[in-house]
């Protein structure tokens, strides 16, 4: 009876999913496929839309000429630099981000010291996350200004207190200070978010486990490393995956930190893609090839991380299935 009903309504499942599918096909699937194809063509030049697929063998008999754009991207110095920058800046931001987020998580969820005002701390620390990244980038750009900027003023003031003089430093003209500032803005924007995610995970842990640990005489540090961290492992992987994908797509902040003197310190892969496609000689094909390369990297990395995350539950399932089998055998 119930089954019949479900069957008769099943067409609505299709109907209600149609808008999603249509919008997805037009705005995501088609552009992905189109981007893939453009990567194998000669499409370049401002406002051009017609293209020819590259021949498999080139005019001078080069083999695999069809992969020319990919080869050019992978061997180009600026793409290499952009990819390296993207990874370095992401690591420089993620390690302190996770570190401080874990530290605050440990402090704010500690059952023994019961810190007050955590609600307010959380709200203040999360705030930068909703602020427009572009705004933050320019704000920090002027705060780190030279010769007069809030940071230089502040540091000069501190030196003065100790009776010393300090020369203002031109932060945005040096490679590593630019990288550090970009990484710091990312950190500034995301540590609160990571912390709240982790705290939510800790609150989800059954309090009995902590009570048991307390009775067994585990101290704070032991409890945190032996109980809390293993229990929030899946949330940490989730944070890692989202942060990694966000990091590989870094654009807004470094985009606003371009200074010729700092040796392209903040050039990221997304900026490379945009520069190839919409400036100079409008190399849509090369930009598309770079997008495809980034797409493959992101899919591979997130698949790997998802696999790591899934591992445990699957193992549990397998165990359960084995037990069921055994029970069934016994029953026979």
């Amino acid at each position: 009876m119930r089954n019949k009903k479900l069957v008769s309504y099943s067409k609505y499942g299709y109907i209600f999913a149609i808008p999603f599918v249509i919008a997805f096909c037009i705005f995501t699937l088609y552009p992905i496929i189109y981007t893939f194809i453009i990567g194998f063509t000669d499409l370049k030049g401002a406002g051009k839309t017609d293209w020819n697929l590259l021949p498999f063998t080139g005019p001078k008999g080069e083999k695999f000429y069809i992969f020319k754009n990919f080869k050019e991207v992978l061997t180009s110095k600026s793409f290499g630099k952009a990819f390296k920058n993207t990874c370095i800046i992401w690591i420089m931001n993620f390690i302190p981000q996770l570190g401080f987020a874990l530290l605050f998580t440990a402090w704010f969820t500690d059952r023994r010291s019961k810190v007050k005002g955590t609600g307010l701390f959380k709200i203040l620390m999360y705030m930068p996350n909703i602020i427009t990244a572009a705004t933050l980038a320019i704000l920090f750009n002027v705060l780190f200004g030279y010769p007069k900027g809030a940071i230089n003023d502040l540091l000069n003031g501190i030196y003065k207190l100790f009776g010393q003089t300090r020369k203002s430093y031109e932060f945005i003209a040096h490679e590593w200070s630019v990288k550090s500032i970009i990484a710091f803005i990312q950190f500034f924007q995301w540590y609160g978010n990571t912390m709240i995610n982790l705290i939510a995970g800790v609150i989800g842990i059954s309090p009995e486990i902590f009570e048991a640990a307390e009775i067994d005489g585990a101290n704070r540090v032991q409890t945190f490393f032996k109980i809390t961290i293993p229990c929030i492992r899946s949330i940490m992987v989730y944070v890692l995956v989202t942060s990694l994908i966000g990091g590989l797509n870094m654009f807004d902040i470094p985009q606003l930190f371009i200074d010729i003197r700092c040796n392209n310190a903040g050039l990221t892969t997304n900026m490379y893609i945009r520069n190839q496609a919409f400036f100079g000689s409008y190399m849509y094909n090369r930009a598309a090839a770079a997008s495809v390369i980034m797409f493959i990297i992101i899919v591979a990395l997130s698949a790997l991380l998802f696999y790591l995350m899934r591992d445990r539950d699957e193992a549990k399932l397998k165990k359960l299935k084995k037990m069921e089998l055994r029970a069934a055998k016994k029953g026979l």
Partner: protein
Amino acid sequence: MSEINVTKKSSIKRNDTGLKVVIYIVSIFFCIMTMFPFVMMLCNSYKSTPEIQASTLALWSAHPIANLKKNWQIINSMDFHPIEGFWNSFLVSTCSTLLNVYFSSLTAYAITAYEWKLKRAFSAIVIGLMMVPATCTTIGFYQMVYKLHLVNNLWMLILPSIAAPMTVFFMKQYLEGALSMEIVESARMDGAGEFRTFNQIVLPIMKPAIATQAIFAYVGSWNNLFMPLILLTDKHKKTLPVMVSLLNGDIYRKEYGAIYLGLFVTVLPLIVVYAFLSKFIVEGVALGAVKG
């Protein structure tokens, strides 16, 4: 034995106060660090350029109102039109948020409430797509939009949000816990059509999830820079983040007060919204973490 216990307890307590002091100092330091840039932004927005060059850190100005007026004139005299940018951003964010939450709820309902052949494959695809960033499709998307002569059309920023795999996933998780098929069945008994049941019965049940996702969709859309920067070339169509990125140009190099005021104008709505909804937003983030 009991004596040992007592000394142990008291030593823990003494450790506690030391640790607590450290916790409060570090936490307060981080809060100050977080607020510092915003305080600087606010305080410099009503200063004149010579005043800023004298000291960025000074909190007050001699003629705040006059400076504010002058800075406002400077930002408006360049290609920076905060009101227009605000309106464009408002339009794009509002429409795309509405489409995002409505169609995501509908899709999630299709996955949870009905049995259909391709359901499993479909939801697997949705989960798989969650992580694919929009930027990977940029070149193809741009070429498509360009061919259709829809560059500078704000709808090209709005319509893609109908298909938001991340929101669908969240809504699906929520519905699985909150929806009981008996309510749907009884609506059917009363003769309500499937579509009406969704709009009048299911949507109200999903209100908490919709509210959370709407906030994130809104903030995400409001802050988006990459796509608008590529698609919008008409200066009257630019959204607020694109306008903000103009503030970096050389024309403003000397007008520090105007830069600070421009920045302040762009984040003002966000700060106002956050002041009212912060508790709710933080809870929403936590909810998403547990579900995700």
